[in-house]
């Protein structure tokens, strides 16, 4: 315990230097901006900026990226409350009540409860990370290749088969990602695979390229093809403040949201959809009398406060599997993992011993960043709202310039720009036909690692795959994978027959 405390203080000392504070601030501001702007999210923003890893020192850039990561969560709620357009899934639930509140003239209160709730949940979840990440890491050191492979299998399964609507589309996306990860040199034997004698492909396809292509370019192409006639309306702002009754209704909702969200981030199941919906359902059920009548009508403040807190708690604790196991379960954490890899750092249990200064500075910066974001989003919210008025043509065309920087800056190759366009087309088709994108990115970045773990595991088993069943931990994990695949279908079927 004392150990954690002194390391955390050390982390604050590193994160608190003027230069690192500046990086954190720029990250938070940029994150809020990309959260507010439609068409660009935290995964895209971090991916486009990955080339800076070539020059900027590891701690500074990880603090910067982390700032973008959770800054975007704060900014995203502003858009979903003020704009009547379907946003990203993370803020969809916030939009349900937030939009109604804004329509009945309470936009300010909705924005305030979202920002303060994000702060409360973010801070509690960071405490959770501080206390539990080292413990998980200590335990994870004991895992061998068979267990690791099973954990990755679990991540693949949940991210592709469970989270989306359709198992077959999720799995297709996952295997497309794995196929992209295959391109280039095999890690163990050095064998070139699927390079087609194109020298640029020997090093593999950059994760930046795939992320920027799938998100930014696909988004721009989708906008030009389908969104031209879309009429957006903006809700009127009101003073950002909360009444006594707002506070009384928000505080328990924030705490419940945090409690629901935090555990979800820790398990390699990813996604904020489930915790935010659960929190919304809980708040609706617990509300009484006139408060309950506000749900779906005038807009209930609990319905914004709870899900927003759950969202931020999940996003923050999702750093635990990333930092301690090296397993990303969302688009953004997958890109963050790519950033670590650019420094030759492999996130995983050794991270807490081999790069402890970096990890603790990163955790300390989460505390600092949450305070910065509260300031950025409460008094200064009027400034961010102006971003909603950036005209769409300039916005998307500008995104393409930044996409070029990200894709070209990584390897200085014009070939990558053609590849970027091709991946953009792939992303457009996937979006149009409702394929999830997270499995592609997670599959691509985790695929090569899973392959290496698989081979190591089978070497341990002296060439036999039985090794997975002989070790209790890996057997348990395999059973979890199987149940995760089977149980949801079973439940669905029961629901259908009951109705």
């Amino acid at each position: 315990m004392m150990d954690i405390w002194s390391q955390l203080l050390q982390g604050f000392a590193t994160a608190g230097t003027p230069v690192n504070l500046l990086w954190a601030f720029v990250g938070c501001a940029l994150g809020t901006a990309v959260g507010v702007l439609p068409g660009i999210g935290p995964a895209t923003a971090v991916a486009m900026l990955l080339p800076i890893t070539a020059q900027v020192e590891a701690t500074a850039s990880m603090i910067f990226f982390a700032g973008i990561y959770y800054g975007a969560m704060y900014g995203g709620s502003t858009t979903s409350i003020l704009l009547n357009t379907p946003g990203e899934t993370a803020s969809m639930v916030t939009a349900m009540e937030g939009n109604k509140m804004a329509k009945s003239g309470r936009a300010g209160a909705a924005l305030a409860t979202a920002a303060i709730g994000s702060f409360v949940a973010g801070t509690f979840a960071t405490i959770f990370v501080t206390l539990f990440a080292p413990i998980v890491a200590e335990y994870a050191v004991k895992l061998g290749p068979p267990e690791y492979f099973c954990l990755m299998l679990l991540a693949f399964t949940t991210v592709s088969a469970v989270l989306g609507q359709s198992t077959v589309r999720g799995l297709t996306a996952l295997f497309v990602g794995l196929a992209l990860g295959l391109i280039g040199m095999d890690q163990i034997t050095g064998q070139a695979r699927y390079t087609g004698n194109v020298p640029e492909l020997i090093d593999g396809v950059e994760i930046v390229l795939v992320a920027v292509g799938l998100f930014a370019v696909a988004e721009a192409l989708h906008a030009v093809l389908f969104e031209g006639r879309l009429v957006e309306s903006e809700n009127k702002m009101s003073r950002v403040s909360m009444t006594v009754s707002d506070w009384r209704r928000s505080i328990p909702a924030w705490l419940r949201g945090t409690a629901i969200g935090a555990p979800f981030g820790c398990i390699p199941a990813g996604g904020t959809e489930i915790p935010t919906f659960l929190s919304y359902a809980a708040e609706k059920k617990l509300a009484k009398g006139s408060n309950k009548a506000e749900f779906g009508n005038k807009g209930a403040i609990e319905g914004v406060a709870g899900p927003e807190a759950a969202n931020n708690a999940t996003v923050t604790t999702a750093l635990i599997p990333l930092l301690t196991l090296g397993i990303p379960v969302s688009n953004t954490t997958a890109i963050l993992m790519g950033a670590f890899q650019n420094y030759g750092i492999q996130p995983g249990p050794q991270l807490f011993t081999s790069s402890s200064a970096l990890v603790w500075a990163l955790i300390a910066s989460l505390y600092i960043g949450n305070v910065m974001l509260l300031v950025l989003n409460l008094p200064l919210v009027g400034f961010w709202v102006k971003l909603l008025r950036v005209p769409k043509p300039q916005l998307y065309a500008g995104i393409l310039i930044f996409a070029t920087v990200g894709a070209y800056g990584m390897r200085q190759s014009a070939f990558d720009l053609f590849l970027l366009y091709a991946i953009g087309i792939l992303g457009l088709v996937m979006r149009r036909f409702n394929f999830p994108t997270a499995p592609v990115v997670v599959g691509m970045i985790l695929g090569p690692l899973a392959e290496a773990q698989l081979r190591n595991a089978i070497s341990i088993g002296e060439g036999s795959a039985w090794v997975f069943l002989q070790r209790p931990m890996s057997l348990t994990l395999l059973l979890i994978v199987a149940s995760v695949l089977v149980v949801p279908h079973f439940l669905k079927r029961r629901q259908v027959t009951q109705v």
Partner: protein
Amino acid sequence: MAQAQSQHGQTLVGAGVVLLALGLAAGAVSIPSDAGYAGVGPNFLPWLVASALLVCGAFLVFEARTGGFREMDDETFDGPPYWSGFVWMSTGMLVNAALITTLGFILSCTLCFVLAARGLRNSQGKTTPGLRPWLTDLGVGVLIAAPVYWLFTKFLAINLPGLTHSGWL
């Protein structure tokens, strides 16, 4: 009509996945299977991915032919696609890819910006005739591309191609 059309598209997507699987399998043939101590060689995952995609692709075609993909979101943007805007934007991106090393980052990206913005303006149906919108886009394009270029080359020391070697253009 729209239903039939989307089923047609879905069949094509499924068929595309099948084709991708076959392509991966064809490529996997030439990867050696030498497993060494590992038990599984470098060709194991390629074969696994190819077979899995084949199954997925076949299943997608099956779904498309029997009433369409299951559990789709309601499409919010269901108007007809605006292909001419798509062509403007695609041209912008491909021209950028082709010319970036010759024209340099700033000019090439500005060109991409102008072409893409034109497509987006047209898609909104708000294009005013004359030179003015072109000049606006040109100006905004330079105002984004130039500072980005300077920020990356001067401040972050990341190599981006220039028209000259000065690092300013």
